[in-house]
Each structure stands twice: as C-alpha cells, then as structure tokens.
C-alpha cells in the first residue's frame, strides 16, 4: 500500500455542509475533492478515481445520490460509497418509492445519517478502505 493520502470525493448541494465535511475529512488525514451537484460529481469521476466517495442523497433530484452511486459503481466497481442523508422520516423521503427491481441498483456500501461525529465517520471510512 502506498503512503500517499487516500482521496475522498464528497458531493453535497449544501455548500456549507460540504465545506464542513471537507474540513472534517481533511482533518482525519485524507485528501478531499468536492462536488456541489450530481452533475459535477459525475464530471469529476470521468477523470479521477477517488479511493472512496460520500454522496448526499438529495441533490438536483431527490434520488441523485442513488443515481450517482449506480454510475460510479459501474465505472469503479471497487470504490466504496457512503450515502449520507437526513433521516427518512424528517425529509418525507421514502424508500418505498423504490420497488424491488430498483433496490438491486442501489449500489452504496453504507447508509449514514447526517450529523455524524468525526470519530464515527473515521471508523466507517477506515473499515471501508480496509485501513
């Protein structure tokens, strides 16, 4: 394994949340690339392969995070993905929107709630990166 710091892509359309996540993840000792939308994240993924990605669920569309995970996994099957969102009950968002067939294409490795503590996040990232 190389000594170079791992690169993490974070996509979130709340600029403030993105900034705070970036600071938190950098603080944990990773390199960070940010994207403010699904479209921007897709563009990044065209040229860069991050070691791990954290996607917000609701960006341009309420299921942007799912679509992004699907596309990212098709390109980089071995890149772990964390989907982050506020809890379903509070957003009015419901997994029921997705039928059995759709479930197969939800490709994230982990589903995390926003507002996670740095130490919890660190643990989950390390686990996914097998560090």
């Amino acid at each position, binding site marked *: 394994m190389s000594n170079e710091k791992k690169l993490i892509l974070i996509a979130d359309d709340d600029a403030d*949340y993105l900034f705070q996540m970036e600071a938190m993840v950098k603080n944990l000792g990773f390199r960070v690339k940010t994207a403010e939308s699904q479209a921007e994240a897709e563009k990044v993924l065209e040229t860069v392969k991050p070691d791990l990605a954290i996607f917000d669920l609701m960006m341009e569309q309420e299921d942007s995070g799912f679509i992004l995970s699907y596309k990212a996994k098709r390109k980089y099957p071995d890149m772990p993905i964390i989907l982050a969102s506020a809890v379903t009950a509070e957003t*009015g968002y419901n997994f029921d929107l997705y039928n059995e067939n759709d479930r197969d294409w939800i490709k994230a490795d982990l589903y995390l709630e926003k507002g996670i503590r740095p130490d919890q996040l660190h643990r989950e990232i390390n686990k996914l990166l097998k560090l």
Partner: protein
Amino acid sequence: MATLHVLVVDDEPGIRSGVTRILSNYTVGYPFMDEDFDFHLIEAGTGEDAIEVLNNQPVDVVLLDNKLPGMDGIEVLDYIKQQNFDVAVMMITSYASLDLAIKATRNGAYNFMPKPFTPQELRASIENVAKHLFLKRMTRKMQEEGKQIRFQFLSVLSHELKSPINAVEGYLKMMQEKQFGEKVEDYDRMIDRSLTRLKGMRNLIMDLLDLTKIESGKKERKMRDVNLAEIAKMAMDTMEPYAIQRSVKMRLNVEGDPQLLADADEMEIVFNNLISNAVKYNKEGGKVQVIISDRGKDLEIKVSDTGIGMSEEDSDKIFQDFVRIKNSKTKEITGSGLGLSITRKMIEQYNGTIEVESKPDEGTTFTVSLPRL
C-alpha cells in the same frame, strides 16, 4: 405532564438498564406543546416478550435492537406494522447496512440509532421521536377535525429548517474548537455564511406566515378598491437597494385603470414575490419590467426580467411548495421555495390565473390575470 411509554427491546441487560437509567429522569418540552413529556420504561429481552408487552399495555415508542435471540427486530417491526400499533419505532443497531435500512424504513421504522451511543445521543434521539409522535398525533387529530394540515408539508418544512441549523451549528463548533486559528478574522467567511443561513430561515418564517394567512382562512380579508400601481411601486421601492447593488433597472408601465377590489396586504404579497424574484434571478445590469393593464373584465399584470431564465421542465415545477431550481446559476441565490407557491394560492383565491414563460439565459415573464369581481 404527559407520559410516553417506552419499550426497550434488547438482549443485553446492560443496554436495557442503561436506557432505563438515562431516560427515567428525563423530560422533553417544546414551545408548541401544552405539556412536557416524561418517560415510563418497559424492558423486554426478546422479540417474543416485546410482542407480549405490545399486546397487553400501552406503548408509544419502541427502541428495537435488530439482533435478538429468537425472532429478530425486523420481524417485530413487521408485526407492529401488521397490527397497526400507533407507535414510533427506533432501531438500535450497529451501523445499519443499506439493506436493513431499506427493510426497516419500509416497515415503518422512524429512525436509527447507532450502537454504542452516549446518553446525550439517546436523549437527542428520544427528543426527536417524541416530537415526531406529537406532530403525527396532532396532525391526525386535526385531520379528524377536518382541518387541512399536510404532514408531508410539515416533514419537508422540518428538513428545510434543519439544514440551516445544521450548517450554523457546524460553523459554531469549528469556531469553538478554533479549527482555523486564533483570530476572529480567520472565521469571517463562516460568520458570513451563518448569517446568510439565518437570514434564509427568517425569510422562510416570513413566507410561512403568509402561507398561514391563506390556509387558515381565519383572517378576515379587507376588500376595498386597491390601486395596484401603488402596490407595485411599493414592492419596487422595497427591492430598490438590492436592485441598485446588482445594477438592475426596474420600470413600471400602467395602461388604463389599475384599480381592483382586493385585499391590499394580499396584493402586496403577490407583487413582492414576483418583483423580488425578477431582481434576484436577474443578471448584473439586467432589466425588470412591470406592466399593469386594464382589460375591462380583468386586470393583467406582467412581470418580466432579462435574467437567467429556466428550462421548460423547471417552469412546470416552480409553483409547488419548496421547489427551488438548483443549478450553478442559482447557487448563490437564497430562497425558501415557497414564494411562488404562495403567490399562486393567493391568485387562485381571486379566481385568477398565473402563467410563466421562460427561456434559459434570456429571461422570464410571469403573467397574472385577476378578474374584476
């Protein structure tokens, strides 16, 4: 004081007694509730025991571990759903796999709490559940009483209010921990952003007040002859400072008689929303044109801008609650996503219509038609 009955289902006695200890002296209160809640704890070591309890005594909240010796948490959840118990279920689990999250949310779990948790986290989660339960019951009661309260609306609203709180809280924590240095100046950007988010919240609350005026229907409308040109002028004056900042020129044209029998406050809301949008979504140095024309049976109001415009797909959505067009051009523009929904509702109360025409990068025109009563 009202009591919520909390059933803790976990095969580890330590977790059960811990939860009992943490919650037995805890109370929750909100400004909008008449009374505070306290908690009565019931413990169950297996899923089977939990079902026994659910069948025999009142339970409001279930804290449910997924890994149980006999039937697992998902099966208990399934039973709760089948029996249609009025309870809020919170899954206690080590980080949920997506699969479990989907299964559990499908079956009506309200929330997840990662294990291990601190007393503080447990209290915060229980506070949310209590609030959720209260709102849910309140909503149902109101619906039963024939009042139109949309739970969907409330849940989106809570999300819209939560995002800025999260953002401001995040920045305050960074400042508290002095993550970016010792000087106040190091935090200028964060302070600016916090203030912007708070301002956004304030605007949302103002918009909500407008919306309540429409939806409660309680407030008497003061119908009188209103000069719409004067109201338009007032709305333009309000936007003037911001328009100057952005070098946007505003013009008003009146053709014929601009008098309409209406409530002046309501007309002000309509003009404020349309004109502020025309300035906000404009380009540097752009124009805003307001035309009020008397067409006999009705009055037509056209508000046009030379701004960023939008796609046809976006135009179809913008009158819905909380819809905001998100792209690189609108990134810096704040808004509650309620303005146009309020405007449309207002106009419909007058049996009027509102339409939008827009071309990306060229501009947008809203056309309102209000019949003379």
